[in-house]
């Protein structure tokens, strides 16, 4: 498990142990990866993060267009694998969680422990740092540092 924000590690490890999920990705609604478990290649996690954030954005727009309440969770179930995609509020803004799980657990358990993860993250979040410009001068350096943290390369 690798995380850009160290305080995310304990809640996510607890979630992974309880839910028996295979893969887990936490990201911002813009697709910036906060933590990941189970992904091997950077290109996979970046693609999945972008697609996940895109799905959350498009289902949010769909709900808005139909004047429904925004969807908080989307689940796709296949014969061997399923994934849960959920957006939630944290003290650091709105985040998205993507969880891939197999037949060794269940949707109910993953949802149950994901709710716990959201609560644990809210409790563990440190005071928010002072806001910084979105495109800081050292943006590329920060991006590379995040990738090194997430993939150790």
């Amino acid at each position, binding site marked *: 498990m690798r995380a850009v924000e160290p305080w995310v590690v304990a809640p996510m490890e607890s979630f992974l142990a309880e839910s028996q999920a295979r893969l887990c990705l936490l990201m911002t609604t813009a697709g910036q990866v906060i933590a990941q478990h189970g992904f091997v290649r950077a290109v996979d996690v970046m693609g999945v993060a972008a697609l996940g954030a895109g799905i959350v954005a498009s289902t949010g727009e769909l709900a808005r267009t139909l004047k429904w309440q925004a969807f908080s969770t989307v689940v796709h*179930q296949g014969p061997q694998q399923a994934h849960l995609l959920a957006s939630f509020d944290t003290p650091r803004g709105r985040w998205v969680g993507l969880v891939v799980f197999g*037949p060794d*657990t*269940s*949707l*109910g*358990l993953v*949802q*149950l422990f994901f709710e716990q993860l959201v609560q644990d993250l809210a409790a563990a979040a440190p005071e928010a740092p002072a806001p910084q410009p979105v495109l800081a001068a050292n943006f590329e350096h920060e991006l590379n540092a995040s990738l090194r943290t997430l993939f150790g390369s």
Partner: protein
Amino acid sequence: MSASKFDTALELVTHVPGVRGAMLVSAADGVVVAEALMDEMKGSAVAALAASLASRLRRAAEGAGRGVPRFVHLTATGGTLLAAPLGDDLLLVTVAERTVNAGLARLEMFRALEILA
């Protein structure tokens, strides 16, 4: 299977004194299909954990060469949990006080399963 059939079946169980709630749960997903809960019980949590428990007990019983469990009776310090499978797909779960007449609850659960079969 109609929704009113679910209601009728769950009502049979919840009328037993000491029963705090009954629900039909998708056995594979651990998700609530229908519920009749008496108080502030969190149905989704009970459903997920009861389905997981039933699935593990089933594997244990099959591993011991005892076939598929027909009924699960768990007595905890704060109450009782009863579960019975309906085919391979559904699970009837009942949460009750520790003092519940478990025999009567079990009987009504089997009657409910007959309605749902």
